[in-house]
């Protein structure tokens, strides 16, 4: 039986398997490749700053440790767990913080590292409505419509629809015409 989060299930409950050193080597390789991407993904989807997004991403990797041997698609699992963790943290912050102290803009420690064009494109992406922004972010990370639908609890048609609206909005915001020219 395969759960939709990519974890092999056994007897109706998640099977935790002992992680070994060979597993850790594989995790370390995935970490090097995916950690920066996961941080950018979390930050874009949730609005958390890069420090907090990094913490969320690290937490997702640590949670993968005992489950590693049972993960059918570790990348999809990591992104989904990180996404859910980020949303939970944002909700906790909103619940516990006085409204006037919630930041409107995420803190950008590395803003000096970004070129103007990157900043403009990613700012437009972050300016989309939440569902459209999240669909685009999953798409940019190369996930299929079915994977996005499962992660976000949407239908595949809703994923396509959100992406279509997002692209139309981005074309407008970035000053591109229908054929893509500026």
């Amino acid at each position, binding site marked *: 039986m395969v759960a939709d989060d990519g974890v092999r299930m056994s007897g109706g409950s998640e099977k935790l398997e*002992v992680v070994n050193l060979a597993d*850790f080597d594989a*995790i*370390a390789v995935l*970490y*090097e490749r995916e*950690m*920066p*991407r996961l*941080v*950018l993904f979390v930050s874009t989807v949730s609005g958390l*700053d*890069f*420090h*907090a997004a*990094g*913490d969320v991403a*690290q937490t997702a990797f*640590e949670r993968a*440790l*005992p489950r590693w041997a049972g993960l059918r698609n570790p*990348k*999809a699992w990591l992104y989904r767990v990180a996404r859910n963790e980020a949303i939970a943290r944002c909700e*906790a*912050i909103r619940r*516990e*913080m006085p409204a006037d*102290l*919630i*930041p409107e*803009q995420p*803190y*950008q*420690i590395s*803003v000096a*590292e*970004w*070129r103007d*064009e*990157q900043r403009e*494109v*990613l700012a437009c*992406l972050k300016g989309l409505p939440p569902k459209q922004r999240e669909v*685009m972010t999953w*798409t940019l*990370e*190369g*996930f*299929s419509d079915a*994977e996005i639908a499962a992660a976000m609890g949407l239908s595949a048609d809703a994923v*396509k629809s959100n992406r279509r609206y997002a*692209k*139309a909005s981005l*074309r407008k915001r*970035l000053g*591109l015409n*229908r*054929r*893509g*020219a500026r």
Partner: protein
Amino acid sequence: MTRSLRDWISPRSDGGAELDALLAGAWEDGTAAVTRVLDIEAGKAALLAAFQGRRSARQPGHQESAEDGAVAAVCGEVDILLAIITVEDQPNMGPAHSTVMPYLLSVRKFLIQLRAGLSRRGLTKAEALQLVGNVRHGLSEGARTLRLLPPGAIPAGGQEAAQLAELIASILHRLPALNDRIERLFDEAGDTSRVPVPQ
């Protein structure tokens, strides 16, 4: 099954190919920028520590603890403080922001270290309290520097400086509670040598 980026930016997709390429390029550049500011080796070392912690926790005789929630509560408090501290690192910052930003950056760094150390069970009680002390010191110094700004350096009304002073005060106000939570976390477990929550 994931699609490759090349597939996604193909002209068959539901937007202009140039928009797709622009987005994909910005995303890759953004990833590269994040890579430059992340300490991947430190992150892997922390992951290895967590891995080794899990292995030792599986040794015979190891006592399971039910204190995950206590650590999560402390980490949650730190998350709130991190969310409060927001500074835009932009060239058009006012003088008060420019003055205080280095202090707030260092405060954030200490809070991140505290949160990471607690969640990875890598801090002693003394180290955790020292980090809270560092946060308090950074905030106090930031507030002091703000007060010392010459009146001419602050735009009329001083709203920016007042907001920053209020922000610093709100964090300082929450620190005693955080300190108490950390004290209790260690003391109730009777072990101050490391965060008392083996997995």
